[in-house]
């Protein structure tokens, strides 16, 4: 018996759509019905527009009937993290500050998905302004992990992961500033890709830390991730950090780029704090690559221990600057308490932002303040140079790096929410990649004895996503972790 439509892949569904065996309306109805069943328990969505999704699906079916299908994503329901703008739809960043905000324009990633014919389906829950590792910082309540509803799906793009894992979407987009796509992908048993900085336009993405933020896909398989990446990648004149580079056919390249690859194992990523079951699953994956004929070489990224510190200086500094725009004047929450203009700023921000956002604004303001700039911000930027050089030197020896994605599997909701530092440590294996601007993905590489997914992280070279995806594809072809679905 084949899986219900809502649990199938883009690749499989697009073939059925092309053959006329199913329609986009049927598929979208299947996903909507499933969403209604699981959403009360999973809380992956901030908002959902059923008539709009069905209108898009019907338009896709009309195109297909007229012989004008736009490719593999045409008619496929795709959910967006609620930090990516869709014209005419709510855009909240899971914050009270933007609780009533309706986007007046589309993000470039949104336009690109529409151009590919995707049915844009719902805005997904996340940590407020993408700050967090558990979705517990959402002003609208946390998302739950479909594999164990008492646990977090990860964060910050937890809703994007939870929706896909529970069958409430066929693929989703998230954003990744320090691991916010890869960690939830790992915790929910999905493929999650953070592309090279500059490959995907950030136009229409609510800014957290602009030198680190990058949009990327969640998918059930590496092939689906390749299809999604192909749809959203490319230069955009509206983002001045967008890179002009040739975009290969990522899906076709999965078959063209074969190993064996030289794989580096950074010894700093296998130290204290790594859960033994996670470590064992990653070791098995490394052994698999060796059995493929890959050369496995231990490498060192000596500045790894400083990644977290550099990140929390740079990211919060950028956040304090980016979030200065929420002043209660032109849009967003305005305090009713305010009597003068300073009150408008101070009370609107105090009422509109949650604790973690306030903490990061304060930390960022502090590290940028007069007298501390050199000691914190400038120094962190120099350490960032050294972190980046570590990776680039490793790539003189190897093609890609293999590490765990998260040191631990999904943790209980509430377990770390009172201790920001403990929460920050969830990102120790993912953060360096953002500082260095590299592409990296997480793919399922096993389950714990208690049935929680484990993620393997592959870190690639700048703008070589095709090689990265092919390396992941080789593993996925020989394992069936990606075929498992949570019982929900």
């Amino acid at each position, binding site marked *: 018996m084949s899986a219900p439509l809502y649990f199938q892949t883009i690749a499989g569904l697009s073939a059925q759509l092309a053959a006329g065996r199913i329609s986009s309306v049927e598929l979208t109805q299947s996903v909507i019905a499933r969403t209604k069943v699981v959403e009360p328990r999973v809380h992956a969505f901030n908002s959902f527009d059923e008539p709009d999704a069905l209108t898009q699906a019907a338009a896709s079916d009309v195109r297909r009937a007229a012989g004008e299908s736009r490719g593999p994503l045409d008619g496929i329901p795709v959910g967006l993290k609620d930090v990516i703008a869709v014209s005419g739809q709510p855009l909240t960043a899971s914050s009270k500050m933007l609780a009533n905000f309706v986007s007046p324009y589309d993000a470039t990633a949104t336009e690109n998905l529409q151009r590919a014919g995707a049915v844009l389906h719902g805005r997904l829950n996340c940590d407020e302004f993408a700050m967090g590792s558990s979705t517990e910082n959402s002003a609208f309540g946390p998302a739950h992990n479909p594999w164990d509803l008492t646990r977090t799906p990860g964060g910050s793009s937890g809703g994007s992961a939870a929706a896909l894992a529970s069958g409430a979407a066929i693929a989703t987009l998230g954003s990744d500033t320090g691991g916010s796509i890869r960690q939830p992908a790992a915790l929910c048993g999905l493929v999650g890709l953070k592309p090279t900085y500059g490959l995907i336009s950030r136009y229409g993405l609510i800014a957290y830390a602009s030198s680190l933020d990058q949009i990327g896909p969640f998918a059930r398989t590496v092939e689906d991730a390749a299809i999604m990446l192909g749809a959203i990648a490319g230069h955009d004149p509206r983002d001045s*950090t967008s890179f002009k580079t040739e975009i290969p056919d990522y899906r076709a390249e999965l078959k063209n780029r074969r190993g064996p690859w030289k794989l580096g194992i950074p010894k700093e990523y296998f130290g204290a704090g790594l859960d033994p079951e996670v470590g064992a699953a990653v070791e098995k994956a490394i052994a698999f690559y060796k059995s493929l004929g890959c050369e496995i070489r231990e490498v060192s990224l000596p500045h790894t221990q*400083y990644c977290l510190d550099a990140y929390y200086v740079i990211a919060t500094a950028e956040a304090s600057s980016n979030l200065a725009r929420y*002043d209660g004047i032109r849009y967003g929450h305005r305090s009713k308490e305010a009597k003068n203009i300073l009150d408008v700023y101070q009370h609107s921000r105090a009422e509109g932002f949650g*604790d973690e956002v306030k903490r990061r604004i304060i930390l960022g303001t502090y590290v940028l303040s007069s007298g501390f700039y050199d000691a914190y911000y400038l120094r962190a930027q120099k350490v960032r*140079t050294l972190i*980046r050089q570590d990776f680039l030197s490793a790539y003189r020896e190897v093609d890609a790096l293999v590490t765990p994605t998260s040191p631990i599997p999904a943790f209980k909701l509430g377990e770390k929410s009172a201790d920001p530092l403990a929460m920050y440590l969830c990102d120790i294996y993912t953060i360096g990649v953002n500082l*260095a601007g590299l592409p990296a993905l997480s793919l399922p590489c096993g389950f714990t004895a208690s049935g929680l997914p484990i993620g393997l992280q592959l870190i690639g070279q700048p703008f070589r996503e095709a090689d990265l995806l092919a390396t992941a594809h080789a593993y996925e072809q020989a394992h069936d972790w990606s075929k498992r679905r949570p019982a929900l």
Partner: protein
Amino acid sequence: MSHPADLNIDRIAELSRLALTPEEKARFSAQLGSVLGHIEQLAKVDVAGVEPTAHAFPLHNVWAIDVAQPGLAVADALRNAPSQRDNMIVVPKVVE
């Protein structure tokens, strides 16, 4: 490097334009103290002669063609304004 105790929460809250309650000030000071304690590690790195990185792949002189593009219509631009009148955003009086 300065000590975490230097985090003058009143001053930083003021610079951040955040009206924090006394309870928030106490809690955030304690929590950020432990984060800053961790960040102090950066002082151990030898950064002599190292250039700072602001962007992993810096692009320079990114120009847009100097041609007027259609922008948001007034109604769209004001759609999310907390208070508006006659196509303008209403704010509290700023001069007496």
